[in-house]
């Protein structure tokens, strides 16, 4: 199958409202396999909701979301859980399991979904920890980590099953510019070296431009622009231009 005929992620005319307030209004886009797609927008424009809709953590009021060929809304529970294993999700606040150590957090998906021996699991965990630069912190508890470290553990956990698709929610939120830059570098490496499909939502255009092939701009629930970073930088729409070039 060609990449063009089967995008890794597809959002098809999705609408979502909370308490009568429309958060997403007829949003559609596709992300081909291997592409890094950045979703930009101001706070509260439905960026995080979009990611949760993609893996079925939320259900759209209208429209459909697809992971590969699978219509997420049409999948039964068993198949939905199967499909989710092919998508890594890095949460805005990392969402680490706070009652277990960093090592156990990363090992958790492996214990659940693979038949690997303990030694292999340890090796895989150590490998992921070294990828995110936290090999010395395996025994720490999530509460003992800084915001940046938590994000990196969240990234390691999202990647430990080697999913072809990675969804990233606000990779720089609450981080200083240096730590945020480290996270962006990790994401850029994932794109460049491992050719994973990335969907990154953020309001930090400068950061996401470092690796995104295309950007989409959400405003008042609608995808008002979609294209390469250069195209959007020269957009006639003032808001798009301001968000992408960060001249707000």
């Amino acid at each position, binding site marked *: 199958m060609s990449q063009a005929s089967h995008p890794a992620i597809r959002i098809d005319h999705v609408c979502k409202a909370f308490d009568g307030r429309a958060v997403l209004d007829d949003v559609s886009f596709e992300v081909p396999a291997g592409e890094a797609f950045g979703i930009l927008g101001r706070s509260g424009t439905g960026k995080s909701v979009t990611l949760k809709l993609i*893996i079925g953590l939320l259900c759209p009021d209208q429209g459909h979301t697809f992971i590969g060929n699978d219509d997420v809304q049409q999948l039964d529970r068993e198949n939905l*859980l199967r499909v989710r294993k092919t998508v890594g999700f890095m949460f805005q606040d990392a969402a680490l399991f706070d009652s277990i150590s960093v090592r156990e957090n990363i090992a958790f998906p492996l214990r*659940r979904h693979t038949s690997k021996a303990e030694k292999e699991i340890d090796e895989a965990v150590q490998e992921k920890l070294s990828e995110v630069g936290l090999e010395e912190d395996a025994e720490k508890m999530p509460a003992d980590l800084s915001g940046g470290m938590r994000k990196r553990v969240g990234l390691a956990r999202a990647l430990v099953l080697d999913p072809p698709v990675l969804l990233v929610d606000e990779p720089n939120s609450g981080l200083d510019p240096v730590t945020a830059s480290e996270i962006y570098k990790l994401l850029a490496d994932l794109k460049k070296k491992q050719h994973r499909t990335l969907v990154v939502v953020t309001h930090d255009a400068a950061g996401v431009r470092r690796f995104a092939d295309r950007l989409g701009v959400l405003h008042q629930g609608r995808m008002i622009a979609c294209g390469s970073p250069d195209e959007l930088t020269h957009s006639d729409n003032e808001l798009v231009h301001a968000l992408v070039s960060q001249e707000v």
Partner: protein
Amino acid sequence: MRVVRNIFRAPFEMEETGRQIVEIGSRSVPLIAACGLAIGVVMSLHTRASMTRFGAASMIPAVLTIAMFRELGPLVTGLLVSGRVGAGIGAELAGMRVTEQIDALESLGVDSFKYLVVTRVAACVVALPVLTMVMDFMGSAGGMFSEMAVTHSSAQLYIHRAFKSMVWSDYIPTTLKTAVFGLLIGTISCFLGYTASQGAKGVGRASTRSVVLSSLVLILFNIILVKLTMFWFPS
């Protein structure tokens, strides 16, 4: 219904259920044992004052034991567990909900309902009857120690008097009914925790409501269960 249906569907989450049985069951034993002992002693003191007035002091062991096994033990165990475990489950799951840990579980392809809810409810169902036995026997022991201290009678005589009029229907149905208490405590507190929202406030609310609601429902259900027990075991 969803809980019951999922208990019998693979994967069975035996490891997590075992961990929850230890958390809910084993770690409640000191509380249950201490309370049982104290209740036994206090019951003995109160009963002695009344029974001696009617010249029926020799019946104190039997009265204490039957009261403990038939009603006090199961009910007090249920209420204590709803306080300790119900609040814990409600707060833990609500905390996981508001910090997106439940979403994280789902995103990793784990059925969070089965992993978090079914295991805890199953653990409550298993743990309650066992904890009730602990409460029953510690309560009886408390009564015995108190009586021995007052009357200087032997433990052997107390045990003989306590259990000679006991029949299995005083013990088995009333202990097994606490499995229903476990189902209620587990279901209510898991539901309130699993569906929590509104940050720290939601966590506090889920915790408080878990205790209040499960205690209330438990007491009300106890009426029905006592009637059913009396209907099925009229002796």
